[in-house]
């Protein structure tokens, strides 16, 4: 698409934040969804770009189903989760005929589609655009960064679980951010401790403190820890708004404080 369109599609987006992790299954999509919901509850207009082409999870987590994607003059119209258009979403899941279809594509095809997602979607006016990425440091990540070069990327939030196998991969991702000039907004330690609902004993199934140590080691901001909460995972499964359903939980306060810290660092930058 031509220059005008590129500037047009993201021109009214104030902040762009990537959600990264070298490791798979640490909760990037879950954290992206919860941050988006938290920011929306704080009155912001949020967009989510789901760049995970092989495993697009966000539409399921927000229970938007499989609506058609329409086109308007300025490009593809993102799917809105509500009538007030406070949460916009674009994912490959909306473009597949069969929800179980496997997207078995090599790099160049993925790069091309991501280019379209960035420049051809009419995001409109947004306070924050969160970009949910797949694990690794590959075509998708490079494509997103290249296409967003024309627009400012405020930075990346890295998600990790506390265990060593995870933090090892996330260290690589941190080096990736430094090499590509992406500012690290902070590290989130997810699945940090499990509190037994029966006896309240806290078990560190995936260890504890690994994320915080990683932040210290790499001189990054530690945004906070989110505990391993079966209520959160079942809310996500069912596409419900966890923050509305369980405002008294420790997970709720963890997520809210992380989103506030993130927002203030975006606004002061």
């Amino acid at each position: 698409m031509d220059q005008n369109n590129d500037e047009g599609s993201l021109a009214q987006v104030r902040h762009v934040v990537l959600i990264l992790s070298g490791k798979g299954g640490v909760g990037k999509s879950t954290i992206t969804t919860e941050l988006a919901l938290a920011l929306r509850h704080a009155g912001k207009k949020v967009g989510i770009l789901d760049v995970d082409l092989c495993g697009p999870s966000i539409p399921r987590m927000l229970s938007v189903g499989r609506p058609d994607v329409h086109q308007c003059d300025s490009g593809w119209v993102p799917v809105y989760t509500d009538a007030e258009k406070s949460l916009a979403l674009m994912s490959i899941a909306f473009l597949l005929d069969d929800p179980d279809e496997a997207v078995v594509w090599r790099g160049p095809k993925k790069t091309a589609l991501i280019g379209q997602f960035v420049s051809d979607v009419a995001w409109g006016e947004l306070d924050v655009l969160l970009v949910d990425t797949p694990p690794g440091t590959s075509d998708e990540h490079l494509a997103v960064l290249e296409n967003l070069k024309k627009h400012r990327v405020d930075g990346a939030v890295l998600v990790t679980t506390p265990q060593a196998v995870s933090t090892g991969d996330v260290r690589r991702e941190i080096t990736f951010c430094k090499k590509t000039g992406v500012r690290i907004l902070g590290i989130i330690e997810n699945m940090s401790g499990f509190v037994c609902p029966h006896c309240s004993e806290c078990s560190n199934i995936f260890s504890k403190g690994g994320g915080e140590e990683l932040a210290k080691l790499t001189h990054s901001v530690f945004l906070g820890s989110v505990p391993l909460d079966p209520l959160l995972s079942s809310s996500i499964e069912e596409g419900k708004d966890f923050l509305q359903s369980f405002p008294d939980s420790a997970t709720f306060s963890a997520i809210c404080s992380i989103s506030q810290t993130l927002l203030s660092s975006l606004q002061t930058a």
Partner: protein
Amino acid sequence: MAQFTYSRLSHLLRLSVNKASVLRTGTEIKHGPAGCLQFIRCQRSMDSKALQERQKQQMAKGLPKQKPITGVKQVIVVASGKGGVGKSTTAVNLALGLMANDPSKSVGLLDADVYGPSIPKLMNLKGNPELSDNNLMIPLTNYGIPCMSMGFLVEDVAPIVWRGLMVMSAIEKLLRQVDWGSLDYLVVDMPPGTGDVQLSISQNIPVAGAVIVSTPQDIALLDARRGAEMFKKVHVPVLGLVQNMSVFQCPNCNHQTHIFGSDGARQLADNLGVRFLGDIPLHLNIREMSDRGTPVVVSSPDSPEAEAYKKVASVVVQRLEEVSSS
């Protein structure tokens, strides 16, 4: 006069069903609509078959030839569409389980997760592989299992920011330029997703079967289903599904919590018509031992977790025999 290939000619003929006169192609064509239709009708059945054959030939030209790895009898891939479900942990413990069940078998482990190589950490291996006399990389061995991983070839913190094409050639090297020796089984730990690495491996070497790992939750199962679909597309038999992190037992009060949902993988296995290979519980021991580089099958061989892995290994062997005999 222009020379048309057969398929292009038939395509043009198909377009001109109702036209009385057709292009001057040098072929005798009956004029008049009825005549054209008749001609086209008998051509059409030959058209589509010949067209399909030709398309297949053209497509096959660009694809790599499938060649087995010298010395390796059977390749088992451990995959999942989803990240973080425990592929690497399962691959390591499966390899060790195969050896524990039958010590006469030789098992190797290949870490095909180029972006996030976990095998070095899980197997407590470090260092650069040496080269043999014929310039092949010598795999590093621990617990009797020779291993090869991208993690041995790069620094701990170096990200591997490669596009698909480079990854393909790296995978080729990890497959062909390693001195595996003689192995009964080569367990391959795949990265998450359904992309270049999965395609490269299934196109380059004959894969005896795929083990799909998933956690019970729907979000993971959606991707696991895609993973299974992908293997069907590339004609790799799916040996079965492993349900990982199935249930957590509180060490204090023994209360069981299904943190990631319950039995979803078992149901998916039924839906897809694949075998359910087993349940692995979510146990602190597995993670602690993995982080220390002493996988649970060797560090606590009598524990229920190790037994669960050994049971999966024996069903995998059974399934391999079923698949190879069918």
